């Protein structure tokens, strides 16, 4: 994260190495079962399929850093996606850029409302976002009148956007990279970015150092919403279809990815570098399980097991390094 990542071997970097090793091992196992795994095109598939998840993960990480949580993103994705699809159906001439902007704005508004509920009225994040989830999801059905928007009702350049690429790199991957670069900068090289950590790390102290806690929190949820909105647009363009039940339960996968990536749900801890690995592991799981054709009925269990192991292993490693730190203290 800050320079210390590259400098000293703090627990964080330990764990990331561990996670990396874990990923490598899994990949190798898969490769043995099915040599198609390490083909360029397959890796690109992983990238493309993970892009949306990882974009969301960035937002969720910031939310978790403030010791919050956002369960409403799945609904937000569906809502913004649906609205964009409807707009494009009505005005096919609109360029893709407009669609993206519309989606992001919609998401941001929803996020902001949620953020205000949480920061101004001190409603616990989990509850506020739970309610928000129902509301937004409900409105998605309302605006779409429970219809779908299908491929043929969308302009081609919008659909091609998902499949298109620049210098052979899929647009999705590029967008994901852009998002990551921006937020890496934002989180590490701007004051507000650091304040997010401060707020999560020690809210009381934040008061004394004069950090605008409430604004930071509201902002975080707004950004989360915006990213969810973006994800919504990408989602629709990728699957060329907008449904009311789009991305149901996505929030859980995102949170899980963050946690595997070492973001502490109690706030203050978490690095972009870890996040990427977390998402990668998730993407690989999704992609590999069908590849090595395990019985479809085993997939869920395997996923759960992997997450659990990752989380527990994470804790164990942390303990080890803490112990080392104590031993090093001279008495």
């Amino acid at each position, binding site marked *: 994260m800050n320079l210390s990542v590259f400098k000293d071997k703090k627990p964080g970097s330990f764990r990331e190495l561990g996670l990396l090793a874990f990923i490598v091992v899994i990949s190798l196992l898969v490769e043995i079962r099915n040599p198609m795994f390490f083909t360029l095109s397959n890796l690109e598939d992983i990238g493309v399929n993970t892009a949306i998840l990882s974009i969301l993960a960035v937002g969720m990480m910031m939310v978790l850093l403030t010791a919050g949580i956002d369960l409403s993103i799945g609904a937000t994705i569906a809502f913004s996606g649906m609205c964009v699809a409807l707009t494009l159906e009505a005005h096919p001439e609109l360029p893709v850029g407009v669609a993206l902007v519309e989606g992001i704005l919609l998401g941001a508004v929803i996020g902001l409302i949620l953020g205000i*509920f949480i920061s101004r009225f*001190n409603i616990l994040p989990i509850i506020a976002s*739970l309610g928000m989830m129902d509301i937004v999801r409900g409105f998605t059905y309302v605006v779409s009148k429970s219809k779908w928007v299908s491929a043929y009702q969308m302009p081609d350049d919008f659909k091609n956007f998902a499949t298109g690429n620049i210098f052979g790199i899929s647009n999705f991957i590029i967008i994901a990279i852009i998002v990551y670069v921006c937020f890496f900068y934002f989180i590490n090289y701007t004051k507000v970015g650091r304040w997010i950590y401060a707020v999560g790390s020690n809210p009381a102290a934040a008061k004394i150092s004069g950090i605008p806690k409430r604004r930071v929190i509201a902002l975080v949820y707004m950004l989360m919403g915006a990213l969810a909105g973006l994800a919504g647009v990408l989602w629709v363009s990728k699957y060329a279809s907008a449904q009311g039940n789009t991305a149901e339960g996505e929030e*859980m996968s995102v949170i899980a990815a963050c946690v595997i990536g070492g973001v502490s*749900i109690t706030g203050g801890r978490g690095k972009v570098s870890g996040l990427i690995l977390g998402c990668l592991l998730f993407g690989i799981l999704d992609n590999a399980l069908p590849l090595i054709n395990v019985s479809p009925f085993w997939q869920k269990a395997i996923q*759960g097991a992997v997450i659990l192991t990752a989380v*527990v292993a994470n804790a164990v490693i942390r303990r080890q390094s803490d112990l080392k730190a104590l031993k090093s203290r001279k008495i």
Partner: protein
Amino acid sequence: MENRRIILEEKKWNPRTFFFQWEWMLVALLLLVHILNGIASPYYFSVDTFLSTPMSFLDQAFIVFPMMLVLISGNGNIDISVGSTVALSSVIMGVSYNHGIPMGASIFICFFIATLCGFINGCILVKFPELPAMIVTLSTMILYRGIAYIVLQNQAAGKFPSWFDYFGWGYVGPIPFIFLMFIVCAVIYGIVIHKTAFGRSVYAIGNNRTAALYSGIKTSRLTLIIFTLTGFMSGFTALFLTSRMGSTRPNIASGYELDVIAMAVLGGVSTDGGKGRIWGPILSIFIIGYMQYGLGLLNQSAQVVMIILGFLLIGSVLVQEIHIGKNRVLPGRK
């Protein structure tokens, strides 16, 4: 010297503190729901409404009580694996019956599995107190559901003996059996939460874990018990739900966790611990249940119901915020 005498040991009944409780708000809400429904739908006020309707939403309610304990115990404790626990235990019950194990034994197995699931959650949390319950139960949620799929694959288990239907559909006199069981559980939990050392300790660790620890409250043991209890009660839900459906599949009871949490929260149980009384959740169970039912009678589409529930949830918490926020105990003497 003189203050030896003036220290009161008898609590006087104080109308302000008595009426100034969230529960009254819920009572009002419940009445309002009934009234609105009554106005809106001619069919509403009928025997069915008050006797057999609860059958259709009480199955989840059994988990609300232990979930209440979990939330009260604070420290970010929450259990979102209950839905999967229900599914797993129900599936295993079905399978074992279809493999010739007598129904009674299968029911026992059901409860055993459910309790085991909860116990596992508890153990992990006690062994790794630094892991937030949210995460642990999130992963076990996926895991348990996954196991259920492994066990039953794309099949359904069922063809239970006819007496098994009694749990979900039977009546004791005019009252549904499930309703009766619910009342029994409510009473038991009411006593446990408010009248016993156990309940007191749970509030203690929810309000101030460290202080409780220094006072010799076995925090980790409590955590274990509470989560195990949650598993056990999920067994009830599994039992009644399965009986109502007459068969079971790995995908039943999906999303129950959030419904249950919503009920608890509407009932004034705070997810950050230490707050909440038994009456709140009981009332909110019926508020949500009857509201859905009423809207159903008006043939409102599911999405409208969703939206209203969402507003109700946020709204109620908002009101609690005003409510409590305004007369929070001030630090220092007046």
